Structure formats: C-alpha cells, structure tokens
C-alpha cells in the first residue's frame, strides 16, 4: 500500500510539473507583445521604449525559455502569486475572495445533485425496464445533453424574468445562489443518475446473490451489504470526472449569473489579458484537482482489493 501511495504521489508531482510547463509555454507563445499590453493597461496608451524594457526585465521576458521558466516558477513555488499586471493589486487575496464564492456553491450543488440522483436511481432500478425506469433514463439523457449555460439562461428567463421570484445577477444574498446552484445541480444529477443506475444493475448480476437469497438472507441486507458497496465503486471512480464537469459548469454559470467567483475571475482575467491572474487560477485549480484525484484513487484502491499496483 505504501509503495502504491508513493508511486501515485510521484505521478501527481510529474503531472503538476507538466501542467506548470504547459502553462508557461502557453504564456510564452501568447500573441502580441505582453510588455506592451501590460504597459497600456498600467499607464495608458503612449509608452516609451524605456518603460517597455523595464517591464520586460521585471517579468523576465528578455531571457531564454528555460531561464524565464525558472524565474517564473521559483516565486510560485514559494507561494508568491505576484501582482495583477493590470491593477497592480496582489493576486492571492483576490483569488481567495473569489474562492469564497465558488467553494460553497460547488459543494451545495454537488450535495443537491446527490440528493436528486441517488433516490432517482433507486426508484429507477426497483423495476428495471418499467415506465419509471425509462422515464428516469430519458430525463437523465436529456439533462446530460443540456449545456449548463443554456439551462442557466432558461432558469433566469423563467424564475427571474417571467415569474420574478428570484434574483438573477450578483451574489449579495442567499437567494442569489439558488438559481446558479440549481443549474449546476441538475447537470450533476443527470450524469450521476445514469452512473448510479448502471452501477446498481451491474452489482445485481453478481453470481453469489441468488445463493444468498435462497439461504434466506433478507433482501434488505443483501442490498445493503452486497449490492451497495459494489455499486459504489464505479460511482467513486467517476467522482473525479464529476468534479471536472462541475468546475467546467461553474465557469459559465458564474459568468451568466455575474457571481464574482473563480470562474468569472478567470474569464475576466483572460479578457483583460491579465496573465498573473490567469496562471494563478490555472495552477491552483490543477493542484486542487490533482490532490482530489489522488484521494479518490487511494479510496478506490482501499475499497476494491482486486486493484493492485499494476492495473493503474
């Protein structure tokens, strides 16, 4: 187990190095003179050559790729995310403020998504092939096909514009979070319902279950002790994908609902070509994502004894 964990941690380290390298290569190849756009944003349009040279030296643009990469990476490793190239404000506090809007929304959406999908999948699998099962599958299939930004717009249209029940823009009160959370939760619920349903159906095909039934073990106990744990394994393996799905939804949903979270932070930073902010979001998200996937991997391996180190 320790060997496997060490191997997984080494992999996580390699992956994060790769992400850092890819991020820097992307910034290095960004079109236009980044020094010029920084200067324009800071001082207005007319800039002298000396100012440009100063900015270039400050950001390390005038050295080679690997020197500049190291110059770029070392403060990041020390936890210094630098200043916004547009406003000059430190990136980290603003990033944390954005995070404080995004994290609760993501967790609440995930919770609502589970609260919808688990009962729905249980009802659907009570009688496979019945109209309830087919209805749940159809609902989930449509739900997976609806893009989060369109669902968000439809909910705004219905609940904010037509009915006027809920606010659509901003994040001032709890009521402002209802529509964004609902948008994300419905998407999560749709994909989870499909996975949990097929997980349960698959778990019921285990060869020893009829023997247990004939021996007189109550169906409730079989479901609890032999079907549920087996059905949980595919669900846990896709939780990482589900998190990715949720984060992708968050970006567009925050933009639509004008919530000042991580997604809006990222998109606005790209619009403004504020690269220190962009790279901070990218690296933070990558670290979180890799750690969560590492945790999921370890849980999964401890749940399923059939998994050994080689089948990774």
């Amino acid at each position, binding site marked *: 187990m320790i060997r496997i964990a060490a191997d997984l941690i080494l992999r996580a380290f390699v992956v994060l190095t790769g992400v850092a390298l890819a991020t820097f290569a992307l910034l290095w190849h960004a079109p236009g003179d980044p020094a010029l756009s920084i200067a324009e944003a800071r001082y207005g349009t007319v800039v002298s050559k000396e100012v440009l040279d100063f900015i270039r030296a400050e950001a390390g643009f005038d050295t080679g790729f690997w020197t500049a990469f190291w110059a770029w990476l070392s403060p990041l490793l020390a936890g210094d995310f630098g200043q916004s190239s547009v406003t000059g404000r430190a990136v980290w506090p603003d990033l944390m403020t954005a995070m404080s809007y995004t994290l609760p929304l993501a967790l609440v959406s995930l919770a609502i998504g589970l609260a919808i999908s688990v009962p729905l999948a249980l009802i659907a699998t009570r009688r496979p092939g019945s109209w309830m099962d087919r209805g749940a599958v159809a609902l989930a299939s449509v739900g997976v096909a609806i*893009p989060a*930004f369109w669902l968000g*717009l439809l909910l705004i249209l219905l609940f904010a514009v037509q009915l006027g029940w809920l606010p659509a823009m901003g994040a001032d009160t709890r009521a402002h979070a209802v529509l964004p959370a609902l948008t994300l939760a419905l998407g999560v619920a749709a994909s989870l319902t499909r996975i949990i349903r097929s997980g349960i159906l698959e778990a019921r095909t285990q060869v020893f279950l009829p023997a247990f039934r004939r021996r007189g073990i109550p169906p409730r106990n079989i479901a609890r002790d032999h079907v549920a744990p087996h059905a949980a394994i595919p669900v846990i393996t896709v939780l990482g994908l589900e998190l990715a799905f949720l984060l992708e939804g968050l970006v*567009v949903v925050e933009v639509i609902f004008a919530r000042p979270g991580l997604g809006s932070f990222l998109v606005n930073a790209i619009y403004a070509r504020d690269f220190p902010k962009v790279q901070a979001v990218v690296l933070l*998200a990558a670290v979180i994502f890799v750690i969560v996937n590492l945790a999921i991997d370890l849980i999964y391996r401890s749940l399923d004894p059939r998994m050994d180190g080689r089948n990774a």
Partner: protein
Amino acid sequence: MRSVVILVVVFALLMVFGPMLAPYDPTAINIPKRLQPPGGEWLLGTDALGRDILSRLLHGARWSLGLAFVVSFLGLMVGTCVGLIAAQGGRFADWIAMRTTDTFLAFPELIAAVVIAGILGAGTGTLVFALAVTGWMRYARVARGIGLSLATKGYVVQARLAGMHPLAIARWHYLPSLLPSLTVVWTGMFARAILGISALGFLGFGVQPPLPEWGTMLLDARIHMRSTPLQMIWPGIAVVVSVLAINLAGDALRDVLAEQESP
C-alpha cells in the same frame, strides 16, 4: 453500428444541404426589421440586427457540427497514435506517453480549452486547436488498454517474431480490434466537442461574429432576453437535440458491442 451510420449521414446532409434550405443570407443585416417575432415572413423571427434566425441556425450547423467533427477526428488521430506508441513502444515510451496523458487529464478539459483559446486569441483556428489539444486523452487510454491486451495474443506475438514492422502490426492487427471501441469513445467526444464549441462561442472565445455559430447566437440573444425570449430558445434546442442524438447513437453502439463480446 447502424444508428451511428444513420446519424453521421443525417448530420452530413444537414451540413451540406442545410445552408441551401436557408431562406435568407445568414449575415444580411436588415435593421428596420430587427427583433421580429416568429411567424410570417421570418419563420423563427429575426435577431438584433434583423438577420433571419432560421437561416442562421441552418448555416450554423456547418460551424457547430462541422467543427465538432473536425475536433473529435483530430483527437481520435492523436489519441490513437499516443495509445499505440504506449502499447508497443516498451516500458519507457509507455511511461512517457501515459504521464503526458495524465498531465492533460489533470485539468478540466473545457477550462483548459477556454484558457488556451483565450490566451492565443479568439478565432476558428485557435478554437479547433484548443479543443483538439484537450480532447485526445480518452482515445489514448482506450487504445493503450486494448493494445496491451492484444500484445500477448498468439497472432500478434507470431507477427512480431516473424519480423513484421511495428507499424504494420499496428495497422493490420491492432487497428481492426480498436475501431469499435474507439467509435464509441468518438461519439462521446463528438458530443463533448459540440458542447465545447458552443460554450466557447458563448464566452466569446470561439467562432467570431458575424459567423452564425449556435453558441455565439446564444450570446447575442442573451442581451435581448426580456424583449424577445424566444430568440434564445432556438440555438439551445439545436445544441441539445444534436448532443442527445449523438449520445443515444453512442449508447446503442455500446450495447451492440457488449452483446457481441459477452457470449
């Protein structure tokens, strides 16, 4: 398999003949007739610049579906190559290929695409690049997995011992066994590409106006939500119906393959 063929044919017909069915020029601006309601002269109404929405939807199929096809096909090419290199190239090549795959999977694909397209500058070329670069990893994993299971099969071992070139083994022994599973992955990635193109278009990083792409149309329609809410409905329905059709075809194909393998 039949459902996928039908789907591809319907989409191809839509992309080739859809624009011919369009009653108006999709970029013709007609300000006096802006924001017309559906019905009458304009079947689905007009947008904020007086352009016919139906014509834009029909022309948009070429962008939204056509680009998604290109993106998913590029991903298929790259991913299959990486997967086969990992399966055939020995331990070191396998490690490099799989850690590269992990690195690209270490980040939500759509967000990576947004960052890439945003930093490199919006446009159709960068859109395709951004989505293809973030959309090859699943093919690679599937191709590697099947490739490794084939490597110990008798006919592959014999071919290798007989001195058959690795590329020839890949072409004649690996590819035929890979194709069914890769087609299933492809349907899923095609659907994802449609969602990705419309999402990037909606954020302003995708196909640029005045070209009629469905996500870009939604971005335009959003501003006029209060006065002409229906304008926002049509492009969304186009996206949902396309994605749903592809997903259903993919599910059907997967069931057929599972049945073939089980007995």
